[in-house]
């Protein structure tokens, strides 16, 4: 076993409170501007702001975009299909946490 380093790594939390711009989202996800546009049009991610230049995305969007990219690559699911999968996964998550609390 090797030690990476002694420094404590401070990551960023992908939460609803922190925002990124359109360009930052593309860079962070490794997705193209076109892909992001399509996902916004499909309602998979919902930025604040009217024009792409004003768009602000919560960092939770980052995970949604990456999941869609993987589902598309690995299982050849189209965009509406990915949107449906994400919604069902959200529902599954909330049901699971309800189960865990009861």
């Amino acid at each position, binding site marked *: 076993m090797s030690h990476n380093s002694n420094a*404590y790594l401070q990551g960023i*939390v992908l939460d609803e409170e922190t925002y990124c711009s359109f360009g930052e989202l593309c860079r962070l996800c490794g997705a193209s501007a076109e892909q992001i546009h399509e996902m916004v049009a499909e309602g998979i991610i919902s930025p604040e702001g009217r024009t792409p230049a004003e768009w602000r995305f919560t960092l939770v969007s980052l*995970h949604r975009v990456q999941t869609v990219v993987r589902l598309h690559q690995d299982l050849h699911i189209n965009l509406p299909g990915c949107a449906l999968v994400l919604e069902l996964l959200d529902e599954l998550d909330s049901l699971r946490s309800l189960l865990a609390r009861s």
Partner: protein
Amino acid sequence: MEYKDYYQILGIARDASPDAIKQAYRKLARKFHPDVNKEKDAEARFKDIGEAYEVLKDPEKRTAYDRFGANWQAGEQFRPPPDWDAGSYEFRGSTAGAQGFSDFFEALFGQARAQSARQEFRMQGEDQQAAISISLEDAYRGARQTLTLNRPEMDEQGHVSMRPQQLNLVIPKGIMAGQRIRLEGQGLPGHGGAAPGDLYLEIHFIPHPLFKAEKRTIHLQLPITPWEAALGASLTVPTLDGKVQLKIPPNSQSGSKLRLRGKGLSTEKTQGDQIVTLQVVLPEAHTEEQRALYRGMAEKMAFNPRTDLGV
């Protein structure tokens, strides 16, 4: 290295038709996709399935693989025969990505691909996902933790293998279950001098004996006596911040909820609360004197809890 039974991995017979192979692959890929399947071994299963399909969908590779015959058992120690010519199999593009296929696969088919990929492409390293379990106390306060994760390491030949590695991590205060922490550049190494990928850590909570978390809210069931519920009381209650005093108003019922502000998972921007749910517990009447107390209540308190039932 261990022999891999690709037919067993896809759950098909050795004489399965190309269509049957494809169907089995697609079905299993959907089932074990790590974004969909939350089981711990889903990612490993998904990789195995992809690797099995990569070999069996290709008639040339399948024939080569079949040359080993059906006598090998999965997991058995395996060495390719000396006359094996790995270089004749050109391999490009894959569903498994840079994290790659097993040593078994690489010994049979992978060498040519690994070399050409390094010479021709500059490609950013892949992102890596992992789940970590932390205590509610650490989430409440924030913490520094040393984790042991299987992490990629590249040797001098450029071969990437997974090894347990220690990682020091700051757990931010107020993090919630299901949230992800992104650590830039801590994923898999890049190819041809390109940047490494990122590491994403999904937060899970270790089950707590007293508290349950729902997003930022911490729930506690508080057992109280009938007289505390009826007369009101000031009780000592555990929180993630230590013990606090909680006032129970007179005539509280079982199931009533009381809020302790700020005792949930709070960040600088958002406050989380603790919700205390009262649970009235009745003492059993074992002596004549104890039974007399209940009889006295029955006589002096006109009370029918079943009026809503119409009886």
